[in-house]
């Protein structure tokens, strides 16, 4: 089963090993544009808003609110507009 779309991964934030997902700012199925604010993660006194990697539609939320994600971990997926 191959999953289509563009992966949303936790960017390299420097010496940060893991983050907690605070909240998604867009819902499943919502249209998004590249660099839009997509979700908030928090680590050691810093809230970081992960930007959308591409234009499209939010097709999958892989890391739910309250879960922990490691460096480079999968957060979700964007389906390109056809």
């Amino acid at each position, binding site marked *: 089963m191959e999953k289509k779309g563009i992966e949303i991964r936790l*960017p*390299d*934030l*420097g*010496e*940060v090993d893991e983050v907690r997902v*605070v909240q998604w700012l867009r819902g499943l199925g919502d249209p998004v544009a590249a*660099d839009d*604010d997509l979700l*908030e993660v*928090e*680590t*050691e*006194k*810093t*809230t*970081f*808003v992960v*930007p959308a990697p591409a234009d499209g539609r939010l097709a999958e939320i892989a890391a739910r609110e309250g879960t922990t994600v490691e460096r480079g971990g999968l957060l979700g997926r964007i389906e390109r507009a056809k």
Partner: protein
Amino acid sequence: MGGSSGRNSSALHLPLGRADYGWTLDLQRTLHARRRAGATPDIVITVEHNPVITLGRSGSREHLLAPPSDLRREGIEVFEVERGGDVTYHGPGQLVVYPIVDLREHGRDVKGFVRRLEDATIATLADLGVEAGRMAGYPGVWVSDRKVASIGVYVSGWVTRHGLALNVAVDPAHFAMIRPCGLPVETVSIRDVLGRAVPLDGVRDGLLGRLAERFGWDLEASSLVEVLGGASG
């Protein structure tokens, strides 16, 4: 580390003097949007707040030790805000610094940004004769096991807001209202370490110099009218 090599970039210092937290929060959000749009260079806001308590994204009202009725009587508002971290007190005698900085121009290093704030604070304290340091896993600046500066940052579009609060000469009774960062730790002011009064403006100017070194800034004093550039309203 720091801006010892290469050219410096210009940045603005916006001194607000004493200002309410809510008003300053609105201003931060406005300037953050302008920085994100590339309409201004990096901006460093400095301010001393009227007494207020803020809760970050990890914040718990259980870490508010004073009952809500006491806070109301004292006229102390509680704000839930987007920065990282738990509960923080701001008030007179505390130097608050909000760097509105585009991290894309500073190596896209979020952890490095926090470390530079800590390093600049530690250097400023050393200049005053106060030995301070970091504590692994607990961002902020510490004088042995007492917290002298708190950090809480928000980054969107790779641009920062919120920042650093350094206790210069804070009323200790006000710290008793909270459990800082949700930890059973003590808070301390520079005045209490040195046993003498230290003017806040002098600490501010020292810290601005140390920040400018680490971020490679040529810092220029600015004003509200100038940074809002006619786009206020």
